[in-house]
């Protein structure tokens, strides 16, 4: 292929498209956060996210979320095709506001836990998990 002006433009557009992709994916995550918090500010504080640093198999990654005063905890995988993972609502008989589950991750990415505390404020914790084999089945 000759390097003409037209080809150079096409390549530039392609590169932009690829670079733009992760931005679009995390935008879906931002939307999910906004839907959960109603646009309120998200601080840091009473929320824990326990996750492995490296997950060999993205199909089943054990995570644990917890908080002392949360009424709800939202878990998001920011790099998945659909960022939503789960929303835990703790009822009056929950012994402690912790729960563990196994989740799927498409690749190395940030997992975010956002807790709605009893006083109505939101706090978040995040953790980067390295995934050796992604869990979306190609």
């Amino acid at each position: 292929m000759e390097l003409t002006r037209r080809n150079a433009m096409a390549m530039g557009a392609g590169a932009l498209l690829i670079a733009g992709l992760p931005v679009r994916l995390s935008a879906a995550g931002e939307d999910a956060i906004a839907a959960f918090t109603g646009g309120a500010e998200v601080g840091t504080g009473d929320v824990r996210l326990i996750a492995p640093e490296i997950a060999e198999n993205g199909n089943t990654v054990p995570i644990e979320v917890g908080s002392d005063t949360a009424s709800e905890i939202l878990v998001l995988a920011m790099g998945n095709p659909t960022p939503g993972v789960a929303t835990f609502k703790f009822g009056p008989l929950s012994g402690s506001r912790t729960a563990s589950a196994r989740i799927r991750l498409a690749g190395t990415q940030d997992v975010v836990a956002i807790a709605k505390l009893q006083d109505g404020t939101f706090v978040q914790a995040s953790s980067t998990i390295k995934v050796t084999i992604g869990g979306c089945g190609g």
Partner: protein
Amino acid sequence: MADDVKPRVKVPKSAAVGEKIVVKTLISHKMESGQRKDADGNVIARSIINRFTCDFNGENVVDVKMEAAISTNPYFEFEAMVPEAGEFKFTWYDDDGSVYEDTKTIAIA
């Protein structure tokens, strides 16, 4: 789908009044995410369990909204407060409308 789904729940047989016990639940389900494609390149439709709840004597312990990123054979572990002897009721809601249930009784030691 509804035939090979089997819930398994682990709850202690007895507890002291007000004790916090650990509950472990697992249900066999393929949790098809809606992202995979078959050999012909067609997307396999999403088929997951989208909600799990645990109640004790009618009062809620935990209510989990599940999405496609929950692994095959969804596993949850959480703590529950036991104020009296009674029955835990576990309910899973499938995308196809099926509801799977399991119950466990607990005595006061």
